[in-house]
């Protein structure tokens, strides 16, 4: 078995007396997709912020397998180190694509920015790389110099994914990447995410309340309820043979199509 990529140990977060998440521990390995499900308010988003370096947890540790020094607590890294990690090894795909894109620069520049941020200074190279990635996410090249303002919701989300994956991060955090999209657009995006993740061997943490999305995208599942992890395991096992009362309720509440 390869090395752990990210390891969360006894992670807890409190907002004053309010609970974010309690005692969450899990490991993520390279190339795997971990799903986090639970109803709104269950602590999914807090957990995602905690492990992606956006919000320091009240207690517990988050360690990441850094390229040079191996497993290191991300909150003990210096800020420049942590920001470098975010620019190079990590990607974040927001639920609302507008939060993750620069709406006032062209699609090509949105993709190229991360390359420039890690030191690319050759226009042709940046342009070519951006071209490749727009093709990967099925955005027509005639739209390359257009502003994201003119894009549909599905295109925005695909652009956001290209922008994140262009530097070939090792871990991508996705917060409800398909919600808010048409079902038909969702399917295409799911296929795209799955294909890219498996081709590039990128590990992914996906937060979603959509169990259907989870079944198709994730290898393993964590079920959160009132801030705690109540069940975890293989995605199909958790969904087909849920053990915890809450998971059973969740699974049995899916509306049939």
């Amino acid at each position: 078995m390869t090395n752990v990529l990210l390891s969360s140990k006894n992670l807890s977060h409190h907002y004053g007396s309010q609970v974010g998440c309690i005692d969450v521990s899990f490991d993520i390995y390279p190339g795997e997709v971990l799903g986090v499900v639970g109803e709104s308010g269950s602590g999914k988003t807090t957990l995602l912020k905690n492990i992606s370096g956006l919000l320091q947890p009240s207690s517990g540790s988050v360690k990441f397998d850094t390229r040079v020094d191996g497993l290191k607590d991300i909150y003990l890294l210096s800020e420049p180190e942590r920001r470098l990690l975010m620019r190079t090894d990590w990607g974040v795909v927001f639920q609302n694509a507008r939060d993750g894109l620069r709406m006032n620069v062209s699609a090509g520049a949105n993709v190229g920015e991360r390359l420039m941020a890690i030191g690319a200074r050759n226009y042709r190279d940046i342009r070519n790389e951006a071209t490749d990635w727009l093709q990967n996410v099925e955005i027509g090249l005639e739209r390359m110099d257009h502003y994201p303002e003119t894009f549909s919701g599905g295109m925005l989300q695909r652009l956001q994914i290209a922008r994140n994956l262009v530097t070939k991060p090792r871990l991508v955090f996705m917060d409800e990447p398909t919600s808010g999209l048409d079902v038909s657009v969702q399917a295409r995006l799911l296929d795209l995410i799955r294909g890219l993740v498996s081709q590039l061997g990128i590990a992914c943490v996906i937060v979603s309340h959509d169990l259907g999305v989870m079944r198709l995208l994730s290898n393993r599942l964590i079920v959160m309820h009132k801030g705690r992890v109540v069940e975890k395991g293989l995605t199909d096992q958790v969904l087909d043979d849920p053990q915890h009362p809450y998971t059973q309720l969740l699974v049995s509440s899916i509306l049939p199509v």
Partner: protein
Amino acid sequence: MAAISGERKRSSRLKEKTLDGYNFAYLDDQTKRMIRRAALKAVAIPGYQVPFGSREMPLPFGWGTGGIQVTASIIGIDDTLKVIDQGADDTTNAVNIRRFFAKTAGVETTENTSDASIIQTRHRIPEVKLKSDQIIVYQVPIPEPLRWIEPREEETRKMHALTEYGVMHVELYENIAHYGKVTTSYNYPVQVNDHYVMSPSPIPKFDNPKMDKMPALQLFGAGREKRIYAVPPYTKVKSLDFDDHPFEIESWSECCALCESSSSFLDEVITDDKGSRMFVCSDSNFCADRRAKGHKGPGLPRKFEIKDIE
């Protein structure tokens, strides 16, 4: 002895030349000290924007209050001041600021670049190479080069501190993607001393190379934004660019219509309502100098003598 007599000479000169009831160079001494401390810090950290307590001045923000405050804080009775606006000594803003210091500080003023010890400027750097005993003071409207892409001050400060300047190239990328070349023609961002990316104030990019390793001290004052920054003498100043789209300055196929200069920054002047135009030096002092030395541009009517025009 000499010092004491010099002192006496100065105070008498002050009395006879400056306005009654005003401090020397308008600002009070505490303010000037505060600004000088900010300027010293700015010199110590080339390109870093030092916050300072910008004062109300007797003219609106945006008319050069930052530059005026810096000049007021560093000027002494023995200084000779030159003020230019768009390269010219005779535009309203330049004339008024020059008069302001003549009245409040009683200093000598000049239009001749080489004679000035302090040059306050908006939009240009003089064509004549500045020397190590000169100081150039820039008026700056927007000091933060990252502002257009990152609205949060907290974030831009971090980006400066950590030299995270990748986004600066996004603007250049956009230029090339849309127009095939970098079209930013003024306020073209530079990196100072291999660290801070800095706005050079709205000078044409033609002037950017003059900032590099300049023997004179360069001070920048932004009155409304309350920032002072500096480039110490002989400091590296590099204009941002791509490897395959290197930084370039403007060039003209014409020469100056008045002085025939082909190495200076030219302004296009429309001469009638039929669209006739000519190109003339933007640096009025430089142009006059050349004409005085006998250079004659193609736009000068043959029969006129140079003095007829002036």
